[in-house]
């Protein structure tokens, strides 16, 4: 390469170096902020349909629903409207030529703590905290994080992970390849099923509660304390079952299945029912650290 050609090449790189931050600033400037407020009564219903972006919902003490949307571009429109005690929030594509990144919209929504939520989000993420009403969340690739929630919680993802921290009430979660982490749960009914993902349950075993965890492969890990009380049934058709709980023979299981590795027994007085099933994954019942 000649000296002249080298200099031209260096100039091009310098020009590109100046241009890229400039474009990034323009892009940041085009991301606008929209804010809407809605006065609601007790137990309002809030629905959110957002194909791409992060949805963060927090409870507050006001009887208002506040919607703050940040659009990546004006290629997407945000509709937020109230019908009675229901608030519907939706993003809508306005240009056919828009790329997926152009359609990204992030939401921060504040709701009364008794609000009922229905959230559909394909990619991005869903975070909900301190909301005590019923909740239905459906995603494709987006992960779902719930914190200090209660009510009847139904979560369905295709590939998104799910984490539930200090959740109460009733929980039903399904996925195909998402991992589940259920930490410090206080739920009286948990049904969690994923195909390829791992499931970690590290929560309270409430009296008369039911905990059903199921996967095809991956690991199911359940942590217990010496004071816990549950009746356990753990079966892995092709995988292994590891157990650290000192179980006594259960009065509820007379027949041992002919296929797979199974473990039945009662820990303390067996007040909760724990059912762990895997096709070829490993089931670990371990002492809590």
């Amino acid at each position: 390469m000649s000296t002249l050609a080298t200099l031209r090449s260096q100039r091009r790189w310098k020009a590109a170096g100046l241009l890229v931050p400039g474009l990034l600033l323009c892009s940041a400037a085009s991301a606008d902020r929209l804010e809407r407020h809605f006065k609601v009564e007790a137990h309002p219903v809030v629905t959110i349909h957002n194909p791409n972006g992060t949805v963060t919902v927090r409870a507050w003490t006001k009887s208002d629903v506040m919607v703050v949307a940040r659009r990546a571009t004006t290629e997407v429109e945000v509709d937020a409207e109230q019908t009675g005690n229901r608030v519907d929030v939706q993003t809508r594509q306005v240009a056919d030529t828009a790329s997926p990144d152009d359609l990204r919209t992030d939401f921060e929504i504040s709701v009364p703590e008794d609000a009922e939520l229905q959230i559909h989000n394909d990619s991005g993420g869903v975070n909900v905290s301190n909301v005590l009403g019923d909740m239905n969340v459906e995603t494709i690739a987006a992960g779902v994080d719930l914190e200090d929630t209660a009510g009847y919680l139904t979560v369905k993802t295709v590939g998104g992970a799910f984490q539930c921290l200090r959740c109460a009430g009733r929980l039903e979660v399904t996925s195909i390849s998402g991992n589940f982490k259920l930490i410090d749960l206080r739920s009286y009914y948990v049904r969690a099923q994923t195909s390829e993902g791992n499931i970690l349950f590290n929560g309270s075993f409430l009296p008369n509660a039911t905990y059903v965890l199921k996967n095809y492969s991956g690991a199911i890990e359940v942590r217990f304390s010496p004071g816990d009380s549950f009746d356990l049934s753990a079966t892995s058709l092709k995988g292994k079952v590891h157990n650290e709980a000192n179980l006594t023979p259960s009065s509820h299981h007379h027949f041992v299945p002919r296929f797979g590795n199974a473990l039945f027994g009662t820990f303390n007085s067996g007040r909760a029912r724990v059912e762990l099933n895997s096709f070829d994954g490993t089931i670990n019942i371990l002492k809590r650290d």
Partner: protein
Amino acid sequence: MEGDRPAEARAHVSQCPSCRYLVEDMDSIRLAAHAWSAEQTDPPARLWISLRAQLEQEGLIRDAGQRAVPVSQTDQAERPRGWFAGIFTIVPRPALAGAYLLALVAACIALTGPSARQLNESRWISGTQDSTGTLSAQLQTAERDSVSAMAVSDPVVTASLHDNLAIVDNYIALCEKSVREEPESEIARDYLYDAYEQKANLLAQMTERGVNGR
């Protein structure tokens, strides 16, 4: 009874929980029968005489001397009953109970024996194929329609849906193999049905995205 049981039966019972529970139940019944047999005492002769007189008086039975039935017919009717009743008088009741128990265990082993097992397995396989064959065909059609209709708007979402469809298909194949290997395994069949359900749900989501153009 343990000593009377053939070695093959003992080996099977030690391996098969269902038969073990059956044998335990039978043993309990046999022990109870022993106890009743030991406690049983013959009623006094006067009780039989009194009972017979009462039944004759009410016309429910007739005196043997008043019968008009020909002797040859009576013999034919009496012989089998006498022969059968004779067994009960000759052989002690506990031994009969034991023989009955052995016959039951033998029947149980015969039912779970190789030929019966093969028959059962083929029944399970054909039953499962009947129930899943149509479903599988419908899902294949639905898959073709869903994949072709799906709008390719967000590559992350599209990739996730395709990846997870492959995962579910893989599990369906694994479960089908497992059902073929262990046709009587309810757990394997449950997993297979679950996998079909997951695929149906996933295809519904893909179709929804195709229709909505998302």
